[in-house]
C-alpha cells in the first residue's frame, strides 16, 4: 500500500514537471510570436498598450478636475491607471483564452500539449506583461506628479493575482463554451461595453447613490479596482460591507472551479477539433 502511494505521488510530480515544461515552451512561443509581429523587440510589445494608456490618462485626466473618493486631485492619475490596467487585464486574458485553441492548433500535434496549457501560457504572459506595465506607469506617475503613495503593497499584489485567476477561470469556461456554441463568443464581446462603463474605471463606488450600489458592486473587476486604489492610498474610501477581498477570492475560486470542471469534461472534443 505504501509503495503504491509513493508511486502515485511520483507520477503526479512527474506529470506536473511535464506540464510545466509544456507551459514554459508555449510561453516561449507566445513571446516569440508577439515579438515577431512588432518592431523594437520586447519593447514593441509594450509600446501599444502603453500608448493606449497614455491617451486614456490624458483624456480623462483633463475631464476629471475634481478629487475623488475623499482625496484631492493629485490622486486622479493613480485612480485612473488602476481602473484601466485591471479592466484591460481582465478582458485581455478572457479574449486571448478564447482564441488560444485556434492560435495553437498546429501544436496539438504533440500529444504533450493540452488545450489548458495554451490558456495557462497566455494567462502567464498577459499577467506578467500587465504587471510590468503597471509598475512602469505607476513609477512614471510617481516621478512626473511628484507624489508617492503606496500604503498596502500586499493588498495590491493579492488583488492583482485574484483578478488574474478569476479571468483565467472565466476565460477557460468561455473557451470551452464558445467552442461548443460559437454564439457565446459574441456574448463576451457584447458584455464588454457595459462592463467598461460599470466597472468603476472613471468613478468611485462612493459617488454612486446608495440604492444603486448593489447593482454594480457584484462585479469582480470593480471590486479589484476599488481595493487596489485603497491599497495605494488608505484614505481612499471603500465600504467594507460592499468591497471585500473575501468576496473577490470566493468569486475567483468559483470561476476557476467552473472553468476547470467544464474543461475537464470536454478536453477530448477540444483536441480533436
Amino acid at each position, binding site marked *: 500500500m505504501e509503495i503504491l502511494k509513493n508511486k502515485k505521488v511520483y507520477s503526479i510530480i512527474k506529470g506536473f514537471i511535464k506540464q510545466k*515544461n509544456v507551459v514554459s515552451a508555449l510561453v516561449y512561443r507566445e513571446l516569440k510570436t508577439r515579438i*515577431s509581429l512588432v518592431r523594437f523587440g520586447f519593447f514593441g510589445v509594450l509600446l501599444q498598450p502603453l500608448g493606449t494608456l497614455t491617451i486614456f490618462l490624458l483624456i480623462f485626466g483633463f475631464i476629471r478636475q475634481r478629487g475623488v473618493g475623499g482625496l484631492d486631485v493629485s490622486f486622479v492619475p493613480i485612480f485612473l491607471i488602476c481602473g484601466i490596467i485591471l479592466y484591460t487585464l481582465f478582458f485581455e486574458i478572457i479574449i486571448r483564452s478564447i482564441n488560444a485553441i485556434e492560435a495553437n492548433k498546429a501544436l496539438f500535434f504533440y500529444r504533450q500539449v493540452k488545450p489548458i496549457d495554451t490558456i495557462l501560457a497566455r494567462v502567464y504572459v498577459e499577467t506578467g506583461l500587465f504587471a510590468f506595465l503597471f509598475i512602469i506607469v505607476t513609477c512614471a506617475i510617481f516621478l512626473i506628479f511628484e507624489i508617492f503613495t503606496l500604503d498596502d503593497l500586499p493588498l495590491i499584489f493579492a488583488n492583482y493575482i485574484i483578478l488574474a485567476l478569476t479571468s483565467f477561470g472565466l476565460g477557460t469556461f468561455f473557451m470551452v463554451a464558445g467552442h461548443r456554441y460559437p454564439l457565446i463568443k459574441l456574448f463576451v464581446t457584447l458584455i464588454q461595453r457595459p462592463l467598461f462603463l460599470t466597472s468603476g474605471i472613471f468613478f468611485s463606488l462612493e459617488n454612486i447613490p446608495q440604492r444603486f450600489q448593489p447593482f454594480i458592486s457584484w462585479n469582480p473587476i470593480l471590486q479589484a479596482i476599488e481595493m487596489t486604489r485603497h491599497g495605494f492610498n488608505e484614505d481612499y474610501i471603500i465600504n467594507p460591507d460592499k468591497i471585500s477581498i473575501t468576496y473577490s477570492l470566493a468569486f475567483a475560486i468559483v470561476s476557476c472551479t467552473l472553468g476547470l470542471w467544464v474543461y475537464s469534461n470536454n478536453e*477530448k472534443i477540444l483536441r480533436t477539433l
Partner: protein
Amino acid sequence: MIEVKNLTKSYIHNGKRNYVFKDLSFKINTGESVALIGGNGAGKSTLLRIIGGMDFPDSGKVYTDKKISWPVGLKGGFQGSLSARENTKFVSMIFHGNEKEKIQEKINFVEDFADIGKYFDKPFKNYSDGMRSRVTFALSMAFDFDIYLIDEVSAAGDFIFREKCAKILKKKLTSSDFLMVNHNLWSLKPLCQKAFILNKGKIIEFDNIQEAIKEHKKLLRSNKKNQSSRKQNNPNKKSRRSIYSSKKLELNKNQIQLSDRIKREIK
C-alpha cells in the same frame, strides 16, 4: 509493446456514420517492427494518429509502456510565423524543460541534418515543400523514442537527403521499433519483419512481408473489381439516351402540373 484493444473510430458525413474501423485489436511486441499496409483511405494514418495520441477513438484503448513518437513525416506541428530554429527550440523545451545544453544540442542536430542554410532562421511558412519535409524529418530524428510511427517519409527530398534518411533510420532500428506506413512497398522490406494489412476495418497479420505484399495486391485488385462492378449495376447511371428521355418526361410532368394549377385558378 503496444496493445490495441477494441478500437472503434467513426466519423459522420452527411448525417451517416461511417466506420473507419470497428473493434480493432492487435498487439505489437517489443523488438518487432511492423509495416502497415493498406489502400488509400483504409485508415492507416488515422490508426497512427490514434496510437500517437493526437486523435481519440470513439471507444477502445491503446496500452503502452514505451515512449512513442509523433507520426514522423506528417507536416504538422509547426508554427508558420516562427523559424525552424524557434520551432525546434519549442519542441525541445517540451521534452527537456529549461536544460539549455540539451536544447542547444537538439537545435544543432536539426540544423545540421536539415541542412537548409540561412533558411533555418526564416519563418517556416515561407519554406518550400522540400525544406519543410527536411526540417520535419530532422526534428523527429533529434529525439530518442522507443517506438517510431512513420508515415510516408521517403516521399520528399533529393537523393542525398534520402540516403541520409535511410541511413539514420537503419541506425535507429537498432535501438527502437518502427510502425511504418509506406506506399513504396519494397522500401519497407529491409526495415520491418512483420506486416499488418488494414482492409475494410480489419487487420490481417503476416510474418513475412513478401507474402503480405502479394496478398495486399490481390485485395486491392479485388476491391477495385467490386467497385467497378457496383458502378455498372448502379441504376442511377443511365445511358445518355435514357437521361434525355427521362428529362423529357420530367418536362411533361411539369407541364401537366402547371396546367393543373392554371385550371384550379381558373375555377
